[in-house]
C-alpha cells in the first residue's frame, strides 16, 4: 500500500532521515520506534508532505506522491493525527467533525450552503458513534479531556476515509488506564475501517502487543524491521534502544 524508497532528508548538517526504505502492506498495523531524535516524526512529516525529501520516493498504491502538498496527499488517502492533539478549540466536537466531513465531500468552500445540513449532521453522528463520543459531541474541543482530544484528532483523520492512517504518539501524555483505553480504541478502529495503520510509540508494552510489524529507527537510519519476536531478539535494537535488561512480554 505504502512504499518508501531510499528517502533522505537533512537539516543543515544534521541527517534526519538517512536512506530509509520501508513498505507497509495493505490493512497492516505497523509501528515506528526509536530513541528521541531518531527521525520518527520527520519520517511522518516526509510521508504526509509537511516537509519535502532531499531525495527518494514515496509511493501510495504505486502512485508517486513524493512532492505533493499536504492537502493533495490527504486527498490521495493518507490521514494523520498529531503528537500534540491538533484540534479546533472554538468548535464543538461535532462541528469539527462536520467541517472535516465537508472537506472530504468537497463542499467546504460553498459560500451559501448552510453548514448544519441534515446530510452533514447524519454523517457526523455516524462518526461520533464509531468514535464513541456521542456524549461529548456538543462540548467545545478545548473543554474535553486530553484523551478525548487525541481520539477526536484520530476521528478528524478518519473522517477523510483514508487508506493509510498515521498516528504520531497516540498515547503521549496519558495515564496508564487511559493509555490502554486508547490502544483498544485504535485496534477497534483499525479493524472496523480496514485501514493501513502506522503509529509512532514510546511505550514498548503497547508496541509489542499490537504491532504486526515494528520498524526501528536510530539517527535517521532504519536499523531493524520485523515482527515482535524478531525485534526483541535483534542485537542492534537491544543495544540502541531496548537495553540489555529489557524483559519480553
Amino acid at each position, binding site marked *: 500500500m505504502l512504499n518508501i524508497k531510499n528517502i533522505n532528508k537533512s537539516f543543515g548538517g544534521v541527517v534526519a532521515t538517512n536512506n530509509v526504505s520501508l513498505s507497509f502492506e495493505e490493512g497492516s498495523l505497523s509501528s515506528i520506534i526509536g530513541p528521541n531524535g531518531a527521525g520518527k516524526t520527520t519520517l511522518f512529516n516526509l510521508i504526509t508532505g509537511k516537509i519535502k525529501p532531499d531525495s527518494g520516493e514515496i509511493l501510495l498504491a504505486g502512485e508517486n506522491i513524493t512532492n505533493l502538498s499536504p492537502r493533495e496527499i490527504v486527498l490521495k488517502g493518507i490521514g494523520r493525527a498529531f503528537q500534540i492533539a491538533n484540534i479546533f478549540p472554538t468548535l464543538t466536537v461535532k462541528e469539527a467533525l462536520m467541517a472535516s466531513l465537508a*472537506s472530504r465531500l468537497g463542499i*467546504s468552500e460553498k*459560500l451559501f450552503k448552510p453548514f448544519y445540513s441534515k446530510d452533514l449532521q447524519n454523517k457526523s453522528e455516524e462518526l461520533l458513534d464509531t468514535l464513541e463520543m456521542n456524549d461529548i459531541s456538543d462540548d467545545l474541543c478545548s473543554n474535553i479531556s486530553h484523551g478525548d482530544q487525541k481520539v477526536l484528532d484520530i476521528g478528524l483523520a478518519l473522517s477523510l476515509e483514508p487508506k493509510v492512517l498515521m498516528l504520531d504518539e497516540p498515547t503521549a501524555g496519558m495515564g496508564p488506564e487511559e493509555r490502554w483505553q486508547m490502544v483498544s480504541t485504535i485496534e477497534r478502529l483499525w479493524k472496523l475501517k480496514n485501514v493501513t495503520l502506522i503509529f509512532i510509540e514510546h511505550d514498548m508494552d503497547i508496541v509489542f502487543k499490537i504491532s504486526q510489524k515494528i520498524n526501528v529507527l536510530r539517527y535517521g537510519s532504519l536499523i531493524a524491521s520485523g515482527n515482535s519476536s524478531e525485534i526483541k531478539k535483534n542485537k542492534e535494537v537491544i543495544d540502541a534502544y531496548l537495553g540489555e535488561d529489557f524483559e519480553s512480554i
Partner: protein
Amino acid sequence: MNFIKFHKKDIYISIISLLILISIALFIEHPWPRDFLVSIFSFGLLAMSLNMLIGFAGMVSFGHAAFFALGAYAFGLLLQNENFVMYFGQFSIPIAFVLSVLITGLYSAIIGIICVRLNDIYFAFLTLAFQMFLYSVIVSWVSLTGGDQGLMGGIPRPPFLGIDLSDSIHRYIFCSIIFVLCIFILRILNKSNFGYTLRLIRDNSERAEFIGIRVLRVKLICFVIASMMASVGGIIMALFTSGAYPEWAFWTQSGEAIFMIMLGGVSIFIGPLVGTILLRSINDIVQIYSSHSDLVIGIIIMIVVLGLRKGLVEYFLEKISFKKK
C-alpha cells in the same frame, strides 16, 4: 426551499429591521436620525466586513479602510465622468455601484494574493502598507482625486427606476435596503460551510490543511468578499456626503473599525455593529460638549479592553447565560 427554511429566523429579523428602519424615515421628520443611521450603515459595514476577516478567519487587517475608500472613490469618479453617465443614462447609479464593488474586488484580489500568504503581524502590517499606498495615490493624484481636498464638485445622482437618490428620504431607504441585504449576506456566509471552514483556519490552519482545506484560497476568497463589503460601506458614505475624502483611506479609519469591533466583541456576529453604534453615539454626544472626543473614546476603549477583556456584547451575553444557569 431548504435555504429559506434554514434561514427563516434571519429572514424575519432582516425584514423586521428593514421595516423599522424605513418607518424611521416615514415618521420622523427631523433629518438627524436618518443622517446618524446612514453613518451607522456605512461604518457598520466597514466594521462587520472587517470582522469577517478578524472574527471569522483570524486575519487581523490594519488596512481594511482602503477598500472602503476605494469603493467610494471608484463610485464617485465613475459618476463624475460625463461619458459614463451619458452612456448608461438612468442606470448609471446601479451600474456604477456594481462596477465599484467589482473594481474593489479585483484590487483586493491582487493585494490579497500577496497578503494572505503571511500571518499575524506580518499580514497586519502588509495590509497597512497597501492602505497607505492607496492613501498616497489619492493625495498625490490631485487631477483625478482632488488630492487632500477630496472629490470636488459633488457626485451626480441621476434617478433610476423611480428612485431619486438626491432626495434624502429615497437615499436613506435605498441605503437601508443595501445595508440590511449586506448584513444578511454576511450572516449567511457566517453560517455556511465556508464560514465554518474559516473557523477551522482561524483555530488551526495547519490542521485545516491536513484535513484537505485549501487554506490560502479560502483566505483569499474571504479577503476579497470582506473588501467588497467594505466598498459598499464606502459607496453609502459617498452617496451620503456626495463626495469622497482621503482620510477614509488613512490608517486611522482602519483603526477606528478595529475599535468598533473591540467595543462590541469579536466573537458575536452582531458585535461589531453594536460597537459601531456605541462609538458613533459616544462620538456625537461628546462632541456636543467638547472637541476632545478622541480622548474620551480612547479612555472608554481602554476600560473595555483592560476591564472586561472582551466586547460589551460578549460581556452582557455571558452575564445573561450565567444568570440563567
